[in-house]
């Protein structure tokens, strides 16, 4: 009997949605029909009532589009274990969900989600609610610029001082040598520089090439300060790029009015998470079916890894993206929650070889010198593993059909290189990754003719 499979996700993808490993385990623990007095689904959604510790069962529902989650339990994790458990059931045991019409509480929620999405799209369509006072805006911008320029002078003075007297003593300096300066960058309304300045404090531990690395880092800061000095003469896209790296947020309304909009089927190709002082950053890379464009969706979440709009690698979502103004546009916003979600069969567009990737990257860097991550969808590459001897980390490379070698980021390859090698069997496949200025490719996913799409992800520890 052919089982109908309405769910556009795999169990692995559901796992990747979880905010932490404890939620995966708890969700898994709920994949038992006995825990669910009622369980149902249709093409759009799954729902169920889950017996918790209280007398009244929790009402749990999952909208496959997106996906979207809702549960009446008091958990602050998102999605909660009930939502994950329900989705696990729908994926791994579709037989235990009864197909049919959703009950009222589900129908009402689904309807409100659709309405909200439409309303939101309409609101953006209508443009900013109240026309802002251009004079007041100009005044605000001027005030912020002058505050930032004070900070720029402070930082420039510090760097000049360091270079004049030499940085030989850095390895002996306490962290305070950098920390208070870094903290002041926040006061000067340039929070983007805080991380960059603190990064200097770690340089003396980077091996014997540390002075060169410290110089490159200070050089990066120097160009930003230089550009800030000339802010008014920069083109709007470059202004926006500079604002991004300085941490001067370009708000959604500005994006909606000034940026490019593209409606397309977007393949969710890969995702990378980074945590810094309990702030989680999620970078999701999309690729448009018709437009062929790449996009980066950047989200932040404080405390745990729970993001408002779940984006699942290996799916295709239909939606409109708003690109941030940029000299090399990549970053974008979802204008509305996805209108449909389906499994991804294969990447829409690939780069034929390493040389082309590096050319594209250089061109992008030429337009926006502060670009840090760049997406790569490399076709026909073979993963290579080099054993450098016992107790040495292995070296991982991709080799294209020209014989050109691209190093993989040692950390991501350490975790997933073997999986990539196992999937490829030494044959060419498509690798999706994040190329960075460090000169290595972070492994995000791969696509193989027979094995299909495969994302490399890690669930956050609890």
């Amino acid at each position, binding site marked *: 009997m052919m089982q109908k499979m309405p769910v556009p996700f795999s*169990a692995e993808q559901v796992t990747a949605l979880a905010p932490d490993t404890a939620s995966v385990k708890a969700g898994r623990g709920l994949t038992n029909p006995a825990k669910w007095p009622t369980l149902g689904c249709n093409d759009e959604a799954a729902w169920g009532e889950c017996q918790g510790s209280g007398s009244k069962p929790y009402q749990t529902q999952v909208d496959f589009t997106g996906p979207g989650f809702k549960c009446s339990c008091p958990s602050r994790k998102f999605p909660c274990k009930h939502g994950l458990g329900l989705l696990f059931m729908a994926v791994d045991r579709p037989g235990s969900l009864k197909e049919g019409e959703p009950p009222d509480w589900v129908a009402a929620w689904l309807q409100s989600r659709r309405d909200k999405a439409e309303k939101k799209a309409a609101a953006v369509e209508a443009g900013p609610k109240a026309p802002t006072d251009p004079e007041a805006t100009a005044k605000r911008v001027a005030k912020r610029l002058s505050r930032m320029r004070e900070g720029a002078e402070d930082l420039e003075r510090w760097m000049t001082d360091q270079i004049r007297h030499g940085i030989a003593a850095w390895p002996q300096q306490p962290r305070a040598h950098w920390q208070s300066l870094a903290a002041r960058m926040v006061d000067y309304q340039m929070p983007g520089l805080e991380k960059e300045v603190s990064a200097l404090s770690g340089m003396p531990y980077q091996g014997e090439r540390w002075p060169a690395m410290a*110089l490159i880092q200070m*050089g990066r800061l120097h160009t930003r300060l230089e550009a800030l000095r000339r802010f008014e003469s920069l083109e709007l896209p470059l202004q926006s790029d500079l604002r991004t790296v300085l941490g001067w947020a370009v708000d959604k309304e500005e994006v909606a009015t000034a940026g490019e909009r593209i409606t397309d089927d977007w393949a969710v190709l890969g995702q990378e998470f980074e945590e810094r002082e309990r702030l989680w950053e999620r970078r999701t890379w999309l690729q448009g079916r018709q437009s062929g464009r790449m996009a980066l969706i950047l989200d932040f979440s404080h405390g745990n890894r729970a993001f408002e709009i779940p984006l699942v690698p290996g799916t295709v979502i239909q939606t409109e993206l708003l690109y941030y103004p940029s000299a090399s546009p990549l970053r974008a916003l979802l204008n509305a929650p996805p209108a449909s979600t389906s499994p991804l069969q294969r990447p829409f567009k690939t780069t034929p070889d390493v040389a082309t990737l590096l050319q594209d*990257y250089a061109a992008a860097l030429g337009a926006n010198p502060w670009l840090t991550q760049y997406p790569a969808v490399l076709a026909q590459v073979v993963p290579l593993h080099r054993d450098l001897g016992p107790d040495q980390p292995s070296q991982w490379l991709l080799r294209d059909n020209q014989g050109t070698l691209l190093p993989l980021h040692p950390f991501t390859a350490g975790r997933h290189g073997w999986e990539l090698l196992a999937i490829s069997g030494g044959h060419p496949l498509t690798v999706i990754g994040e190329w960075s200025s460090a000169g290595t490719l972070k492994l995000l996913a791969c696509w193989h003719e027979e094995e299909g799409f495969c994302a490399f992800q890690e669930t956050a520890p609890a």
Partner: protein
Amino acid sequence: MSAPFWKQLSTAALLGTARTPALPSLPQDLQDLALDESSAPEARLLRTAAVAGLAQIAGLQPASTEETLPEPAAPSPQDVCRDPQVVSLLAQIATEGPETLLAEACQLLAAAGQSLPHRLLPTYFDAAYRSSALRDPVLKAAGSRGAWLSAKNREWRFAATAGIDEIDIRQWEEGDVASRTRYLQALRQTDADRARELLEKTLAQESARDRVTLLGALRTRLSPADESLLQNLLTSDRSKEVRTLAARLLSALPQSAFALRMQARLQPCVTTEKKLFRTHWVVAPPQSFPTDAAQDGIEEKPPGSVRVGERAWWLRQITARTPIAWWTAHTGMTPMELVLWAAKTEWKDALLQGLAEAVTLQDTDPAWIHAIINADVLPPQEAAELIGGLDAKDQREAWLKLASSAPSLTWWLRLVMKAPITWDTAFWLAVEKRIIAHLHTDAAQYDYELRNLLPELACRIPMAATSSPTPWPTGAKHWSSFEDAAHRFQQTLERRSRLRRMLNSKL
């Protein structure tokens, strides 16, 4: 940018522009970008670093190779498991365990003629690297892709040498004492004399503790050819532990001079007596310490920790060192009869202890083990070690019997789970009954070990017994702290049965 360029720029920055105003020069077209002659040397250095840094990442020249690609694997093996629900379950099992379930999943997969999904191979190989018990099952399910992959990873080399007994002289020449002992044991199987010669050559250079460990290897295929080495050690080794072990091994050789001397000492102690037309066997220890006994390792004074009389102490030691078969031959009684008889004698403790020690030290027949276990003379730790020598059915009985004297439920459970016996439904129900009884006690409250054992335990249960759910004592006082463990137990059982269902397995 070249290395000398960065070196020069770094030197300038390390010393400070106040001391070294000279900067390395950039290529001409970059120099134009970087230089503003009017600015201060500090700004020029920063600008040079900025331009050079950017040029370096934008103009990265990747390495290339002319080498031919390594031999690829067979492109798409037919037997790879592709059912998404099975793949998902295999992935869950790999991350959540327990270990035994990984082994079982691999066995079921292999029995169904399928191999592990490619992506999961590294996870299963890593698990097999950590636990050697997983190696066989994982290799059986690894398929052709697994064979190809494992050859590339140093830690997964076990796959290449699987099936071949790893007997490599380097283990002997370079290994630590544990691997040297393993080497000796392996060599004893194929060439016992050669193994003894190696041991003999090395003994003089080893510490007392290592001598004991290495000498233990002689238990494997012990034969009269080993006697002279053992006799030498008994007479002249400096360490008492070595001498004791040599004596034990000699007692396991019934035809050795040592064993004959012991029999000669024991013989006069075990005699018949006529009483009212019937012949009784009686026992009496030697009246005085036998003159030559000390050189065979028999002690005259009991150690402070053993509270017995001297004569009882002698009897116990002589009994322990006499080949156990002497008893049945000499008295015509069966082991069970002998144990029952010994328990009625005046020297009950010395005799039973001695017999139990003899049974522990010598490879003996199941009848003796059965008799000794039934006599309840051995501490449970030692009894547990003997159970393996019994017949299958007797083993199950012996384990259940041992439960009552065991120091703790988990101590017992751990051993029972490891024991190489088949669990039938009756046996599981008996184990289950003990666990449930334990859960009603106060000791259960802090029994974290039991909680951790439950998932592994779920893998031991015969599938036939899983149709009726375990009647967990949900009303017990400390039940709430076990709920989670019971849930994992249930989940493991359920995964086992789902796996069978999905693979149409008859196992």
